[in-house]
């Protein structure tokens, strides 16, 4: 079901909560949102758990790393509370501990939101939808799609370049200086080729009568339905719900200001 949502609307659905979640500094709000996002991913996404976990796990590490840094080096606003433990003369207090957990969970919910988008969206459809719904200029859209299509060719060219060097007796680079030299030998010809391709594509587009006007017909019509609006509203609504639950439990914290429930 997630694959059939309009890509632009889906992008907004995951962007808006990700922008708003950055307000909260308590652990519960991002946690509720994380659980919600993961639930939606697997209920409506038809994604294999293994594949999801494979992409998600590096973020687990990053989140732990960031949470750890926050615990050890908090700002004054977030360093109150009792000392839980100390390490290398750095003290971890209860406030900084929970702030660290909160920021870690925040980055995890960002990651879960992104995966929900990435794993269920077709790249070409996303570009076409950006052109039709967000008024991205067709010249830019088709330029990007053309470049995108060239990527496998670039990999092939790199192989050819490597073989050409080897056949002329240029060995594998050793040491920093040779590596830098090698970088130049590969990067510049590859980029030069890309620029040549860009020129050829532009000429081809013009000679085929491509004017780049936005008033044009489309082979793949992308449209926005009622369902897309519901989808965006659910994601926004869930943000309000998670804020509300944290508030009800008296945990809500926005930029270090705690909202006690009276």
């Amino acid at each position, binding site marked *: 079901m997630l694959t059939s949502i309009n890509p632009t609307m889906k992008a907004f659905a*995951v*962007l808006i909560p*990700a*922008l708003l979640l*950055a307000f909260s*500094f308590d652990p519960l709000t991002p946690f509720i949102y994380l659980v919600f996002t993961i639930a939606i991913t697997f209920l409506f996404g038809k994604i294999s758990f293994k594949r999801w976990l494979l992409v998600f796990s*590096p*973020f687990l*590490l*990053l989140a732990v*790393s*960031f949470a*750890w*840094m*926050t615990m*050890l*080096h*908090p*700002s*004054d606003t977030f*360093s109150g509370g009792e000392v839980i433990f100390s390490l290398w003369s*750095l003290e971890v207090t209860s406030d900084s501990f929970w*702030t660290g957990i909160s*920021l870690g969970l*925040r980055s995890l919910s*960002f*990651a879960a939101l*992104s*995966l929900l*988008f*990435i794993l269920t969206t077709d*790249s070409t459809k*996303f*570009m076409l939808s*950006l052109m039709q719904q967000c008024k991205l*200029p067709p*010249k*830019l859209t088709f330029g*990007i799609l*053309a*470049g*995108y299509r060239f*990527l496998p060719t670039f990999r092939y060219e790199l192989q050819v370049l490597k073989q050409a060097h080897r056949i002329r007796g240029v060995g594998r680079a050793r040491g920093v200086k040779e590596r830098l030299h090698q970088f130049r030998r590969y*990067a*510049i010809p*590859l*980029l*030069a080729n*890309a*620029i040549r*391709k*860009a*020129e050829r594509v*532009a*000429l081809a*587009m*013009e000679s085929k009568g491509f004017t*780049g006007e936005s008033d044009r017909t489309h082979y793949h019509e992308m449209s926005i339905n009622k369902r897309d609006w519901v989808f965006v509203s659910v994601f926004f609504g869930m943000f309000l719900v998670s804020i509300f639950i944290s508030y009800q439990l008296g945990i809500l914290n926005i*930029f*270090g200001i705690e909202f006690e429930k009276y």
Partner: protein
Amino acid sequence: MLNKWNLREIVLMAILGVVFAVIYLFFFTVGTGITNILTPFGLGPFGYEVIFGIWFIVSIITAYIIRKPGAALISETIAGGVQVLLGSPAGPMLIVSAFIQGLGAESVFAATKYRNYSKGVLIAAGIGPAIFSFIWGLYHSGYIALSLPLLSSMLIVRVISGALIAGLLGKWISERLAETGVLRSYTLGKEWQTKREQKAS
């Protein structure tokens, strides 16, 4: 903004955006590697700070080659968007952060009214996005919860990385490309050719 551009320049910008999106994605892995080493000291995220400049480089290269308003901003945003197409796990938010970084470089070129592309300006254009992205990180990644000494050292590392990797390396790559002659129909290539003719005569 794109009205004054010809198709050739637009397509070049798009393709540079695509190529650098791949490079950006690759450096994400490099950053993760350095992060793993630094994590035990509670300095994990510095892994990205050291190489942060690489993520601004397309702005400098495109603006230096094409020299039109919008080159830095749009090329960076394209690179962000193409990373999403390639399936970067950072998702659509990358477009927003790329836009903010592009804005950082664009504002420097705008301040010179798109006339000056000297070394100093290109370095400043590498520093601009470092500052813009840092302010964005204060809000979005919650850096605001970190202590001031840590924050300032992060900013300094990012600014240096922006100046060196985005500014100087970006300038160097553009000029090596101009030397190959493929940029003949773009502003940098033309400038390079007149220089060469002057030298010869």
